[in-house]
């Protein structure tokens, strides 16, 4: 008695519609390899934030500070790298560790003092924005090319095929072992991997930030579905009392999920600085909203307990596609938020309608 995953189907359907519309309106420019590569890179930062955000929301929490946090951490790592001559690895590590510290501090305030996460992270957002402005002094900092590698480089096409080959072979093997619908799902994934690699290699290769995004998403998906920590987050968001009575330490899990979110903000900050080529004093603004929107479009319930990392990635792709397509069409920039907002509400409306019917 398998239920049809309405949400996933609508999302994929909506994405296809968006792509077809843009392809037609741009006479095919939207689908050329160069633009698809750009599209993939455009979704990298939002995607990294969104996959962290999924777990936060699944646990029944919210983090409004991730955009400001990403800007701040990307800025600090650029400053220590450029102005203080830190080695690259140390500059990256600093952003991740600092992210963990900021995230766990916010998590602690939520879990142990009982301050609503909305308030804690709204305060955090303002705080981080202010600190970023202070440390940069309003000046952009441009790191050397070695830093920019994570945001702008490509995996050599031949190496990309090796990666893709290994992953696709793994999927084919699973498809061989599975039966029924699962068999087709694995096969589809193998085709997707090959198709994606072919498209990226038709330009310069798989962009490094996109590879990073895929690796992180895989890691978070495994974390969410195959570790006690991840399952407990779903339990806490689904029924906090039940989780408590099952002996789950709720406070520790909340601190944990905010800490992870902080680390992801650090990673997103590095990629952001590297992609743009410089750290600016207003970097990351409103990215938290894109991340939340991506998670929600991707099927995450703000009530907690429901949502997947891959869904959020799909949501991020929808958002990036809208940005990208409208830029190609030279649409006035004010249209972008209008369309994105409409799609966000429409996605949830369709889902609610589907749920009533199901």
């Amino acid at each position, binding site marked *: 008695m398998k239920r049809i995953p309405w949400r996933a189907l609508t999302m994929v359907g909506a994405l296809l519609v968006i792509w077809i519309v843009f392809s037609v309106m741009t006479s095919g420019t939207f689908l050329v390899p160069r633009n698809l590569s750009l599209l993939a890179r455009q979704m990298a930062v939002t995607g990294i934030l969104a996959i962290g955000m999924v777990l936060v929301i699944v646990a029944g929490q919210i983090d409004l500070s991730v955009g400001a946090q990403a800007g701040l951490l990307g800025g600090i790592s650029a400053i220590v790298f450029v102005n203080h001559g830190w080695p690259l690895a140390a500059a990256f590590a600093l952003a991740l560790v600092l992210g963990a510290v900021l995230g766990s501090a916010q998590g602690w305030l939520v879990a142990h003092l009982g301050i609503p996460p909305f308030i804690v992270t709204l305060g955090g957002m303002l705080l981080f924005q202010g600190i970023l402005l202070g440390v940069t002094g309003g000046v952009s900092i441009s790191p050397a090319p070695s830093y920019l590698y994570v945001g702008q480089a490509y995996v050599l096409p031949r190496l990309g095929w090796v990666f893709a080959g290994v992953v696709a072979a793994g999927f084919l093997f699973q498809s061989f072992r599975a039966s029924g619908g699962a068999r087709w799902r694995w096969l589809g994934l193998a085709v997707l991997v090959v198709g994606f690699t072919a498209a990226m290699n038709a330009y310069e290769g798989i962009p490094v930030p996109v590879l990073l995004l895929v690796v992180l998403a895989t890691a978070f998906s495994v974390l969410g579905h*195959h*570790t006690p920590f991840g*399952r407990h987050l779903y339990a806490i968001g689904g*029924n906090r*009392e*039940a989780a408590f*009575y*099952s*002996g789950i330490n709720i406070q520790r899990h909340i601190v944990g999920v905010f800490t992870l979110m902080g680390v992801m903000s650090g990673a997103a900050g590095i990629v952001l600085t590297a992609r743009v080529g410089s750290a600016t004093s207003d970097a990351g603004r409103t990215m938290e909203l894109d991340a939340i929107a991506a998670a929600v479009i991707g099927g995450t319930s703000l009530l907690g307990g429901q949502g997947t990392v891959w869904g959020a990635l799909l949501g991020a792709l929808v958002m990036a596609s809208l940005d990208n397509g409208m830029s190609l069409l030279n649409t006035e920039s004010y249209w972008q938020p209008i369309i994105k907002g409409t799609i966000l509400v429409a996605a949830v409306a369709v889902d609610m309608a589907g749920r009533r019917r199901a």
Partner: protein
Amino acid sequence: MALLELRSITKDFPGVRALDGVSFDLERREVHALCGENGAGKSTLIKILCGYYPSGTYGGEILLEGKPVHFRSLKEAEEHGIALIAQELALVPELSVAENLMLGREPVKGGLIQWDVVASEARRALDLVGLAVDPNRPVKELGIGQQQMVEIAKALAKSAAILVLDEPTAALTEADAQRLLAFLAELRGRGVSSIYISHRLEEVFQIADRITVLRDGRSIATHPAKEATLDRVISEMVGREVKNLYPRPDTTPGKPMLAVSGWSVEDPLNPGRFVLKDVAFDVHAGEILGIAGLMGAGRTALLSSIFGAARSPVRGTLQIEGGPPRGPLRSPAEAIASGLALVSEDRKRYGLVLEADVAENLTLATLRQFVKGLFLDHQARRRESRAQFQALRIKAPGLASLVNQLSGGNQQKVVLGKWLMARPRVLFLDEPTRGIDVGAKAEIYNLVAELARQGLAVVLVSSDLPELLGMSHRVLVLSQGRQTALLEGSAATPETVMAAATMKA
């Protein structure tokens, strides 16, 4: 030597002594019931036993097989074989049965959950309770009775030797409750002891070996169940004699206030199928009409659809106060305007704004009566609220007390008061005494009887059969959405009602 012994347990909360030297013991292979009104200290006592209140926050001692134990958390108590089946089911609806069973103790290898072990352990746990459900199904798809069994399976899988059940049958139908009681008896045979808390005293007498009564934080008496009587336990619980629990009013039915015919309600989940089909009844002024049926028979759907709150298409004819026949009401607002009122089965979810005060809740349905010019006339609102507050004898510090600080019985009185302020002529009561202690139940019965005497027509849905039979003049029985009997007066007995309720429609 007793399996478990609690010696002179004392627990203080700021300003209140919740438990005052309570002693309690449990033998091997025993079901020991704990009875008392809300606020008597039952919940506090079991929370101490189960480690919810850690060792050191209370006085007295707990001996397990003669040895003192000091639990600092629920987990520690569980490790000693004491498992709590809490009043609110502790299951995560979105997760699968298997995941719920293993929640908090997932088998892990290399940081990842071993799903094959989860599956086999889950099957083993379900076998313990003899529940045949697919462990991969989300818990939300199971019925309440099945969920209850999953909960017990979860405790047994953790090799619990002592089950502490807090109101386990509160949400169950009569049939599911009977199944649960039979299973507890079977467990007793297997060497699992239970502490059983329930407001349903009939069940207590059916299952318990011994009964301990708590009142105002003290243990009043412990009886072998065979030697105790219902009246005696009730009088010990309330500290006074309760003569007639069910004061059915001696009224002669007046004119018909509501007549329903050909009433059908589509199943919101399966269009084309019906949760109710061709139901017809009427209720007269001064009459209490009982509606009996098992869970899923359509009792709640009947009330809510007449009240205009159905989520799916409704067909049928209504006649209100002998007026012209008309179609179904389209909204609760329309129903209220027509003189109907509905006290829903889940007062916390549908009846009250828990974070608001008593006065606000009392005037929730009637706020427009208190508009003077453009604004609310707060004085009139307070005056009317106070009158209702006093008439219902709501026990609360005042009108400004928050409703979530009131006991279940007083919350229910607030819900009743809210509707009485709308001056309804037909009152629907859906499980009005669920989870309410005996003293407050008696007050609510008296109130309902008084309302009927004043000429209100009352429709009462209840899973508590003695209550339904004791209060109703006539009983309509539903089975699987069909009307299978309409029993008058002495024709309504537990046997006739249950026969009609289990009749294949």
